[in-house]
């Protein structure tokens, strides 16, 4: 029996969460309306899912309230300054004889008066310096890493013998056991799983916490950033290929048990497969998280497209439904990334001694 209080607070929390999203959108919409421009949902949505040099809280244009983050450029030495010096793209920053301007969250080099050189589609083609800034996603990755360390070091300390004394630890323990019993042992076998379990658990909880935190309003969409997922997939790629045994490479380049001409045909296909497998890991996580965010934001944007408050009665329940679906997807994608990593590692380290050729 669920207490009434729990249900009440759940509904309240979900409403506040969507109010946060809507608040976020409405200010964008109001400013765009003032310019007599048509409200462009695609532009608003893309601004919300891409990485940024400042942490946007609320407001838009010159009145936006943001947390400035450090910008680090590699251009005639290292240039470090805060992103607030750009004043939301209105000001030119001068550092050791170079002038920088920001446009759509990309930093360009300009001359002293900040003129743009544009191509036929009116995109700037000014030179871009190498950008190593601490962006919103980087801050979020550091925060989530800190959070994970805090949670799991505390959890490790809370064991009294075999029993867990910490409430949150009791919730997380089944997840750890799930990764061990359902993902690591079936794919890697009883003898080998212990070597790869720390990696699998780290991948699982890192993706999970970033998927879940990414659902909060104004939180950065870390796992929906293709660079982040590419790094995660590269980790798997390196582990798979560095721990692979002789039999694995033999199966790739000289497949046993098939006629010789077919072996020449199979080798390039298998070799491409080595690179495709981690690439699908990367694309899957990126596309799933981005798609979820786009759908939620599209439902919220409907309110401002119709310019009618009653649309909220339709949009918000749908957005809430998709948000709940996203919680499921957050767990599912963390599981799939871990399971497929374990599967690929399992294929690479498998013994083939039982096969008689």
């Amino acid at each position, binding site marked *: 029996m669920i207490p009434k209080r729990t249900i009440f607070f759940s509904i309240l929390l979900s409403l506040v969460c969507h109010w946060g999203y809507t608040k976020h959108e409405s200010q964008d919409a109001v400013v765009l309306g003032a310019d007599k421009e048509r409200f462009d949902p*695609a532009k608003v949505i*893309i601004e919300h899912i891409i990485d940024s040099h400042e942490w946007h809280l609320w407001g838009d244009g010159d009145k936006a309230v943001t947390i400035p983050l450090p910008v680090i450029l590699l251009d005639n030495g290292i240039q470090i300054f805060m992103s607030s010096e750009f004043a939301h793209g209105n000001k030119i920053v001068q550092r050791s004889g170079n002038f920088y301007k920001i446009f759509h969250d990309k930093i360009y080099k300009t001359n002293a008066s900040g003129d743009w050189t544009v191509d036929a*589609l009116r995109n700037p083609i000014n030179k871009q310096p190498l950008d190593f800034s601490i962006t919103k996603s980087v801050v979020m990755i550091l925060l989530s890493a800190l959070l994970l360390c805090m949670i799991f070091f505390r959890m490790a300390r809370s064991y009294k013998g075999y029993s867990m004394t910490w409430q949150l630890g009791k919730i997380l323990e089944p997840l750890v056991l799930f990764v061990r019993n*359902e993902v690591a042992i079936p794919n890697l076998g009883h003898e080998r799983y212990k070597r790869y379990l720390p990696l699998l658990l780290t991948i699982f909880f890192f993706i999970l916490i970033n998927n879940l935190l990414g659902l909060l309003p104004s939180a950065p969409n870390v796992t929906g950033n293709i660079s982040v997922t590419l790094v995660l997939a590269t980790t798997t790629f390196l582990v798979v290929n560095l721990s692979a045994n002789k039999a694995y490479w033999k199966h790739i380049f000289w497949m046993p048990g098939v006629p010789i001409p077919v072996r020449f045909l199979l080798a390039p296909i298998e070799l491409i497969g080595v690179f495709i497998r981690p690439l*699908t*890991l990367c*694309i*899957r996580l*990126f*596309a*799933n998280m*981005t*798609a979820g965010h786009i759908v939620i934001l599209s439902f919220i944007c409907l309110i401002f497209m119709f310019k009618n408050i009653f649309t909220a009665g339709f949009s918000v329940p749908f957005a809430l439904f998709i948000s709940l679906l996203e919680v499921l997807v957050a767990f*599912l994608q963390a*599981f*799939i990334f871990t*399971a*497929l990593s374990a*599967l690929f590692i399992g294929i690479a380290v498998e013994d083939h001694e039982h096969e008689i050729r």
Partner: protein
Amino acid sequence: MDANLIYASLAAIGAGLSVIGAGLGIGKIGSSAMDAIARQPEASGKIQSAMIIAAALVEGAALFGVVTALLTVFK
């Protein structure tokens, strides 16, 4: 017609086509898994995790199409 609009429409059609493929694939996996569970209810846990992994592989192929379409629009 605006060049961007043509790109966007073609990208949308491409994304739709790749989603049709994924729908057929995941539908087939789902129906087979249902059959298997009906035949052997005691193995449902194993079938479910195998089903999710197979569905993820199919979905990965479809998402390549969707992401390519997205890149055309974002460009």
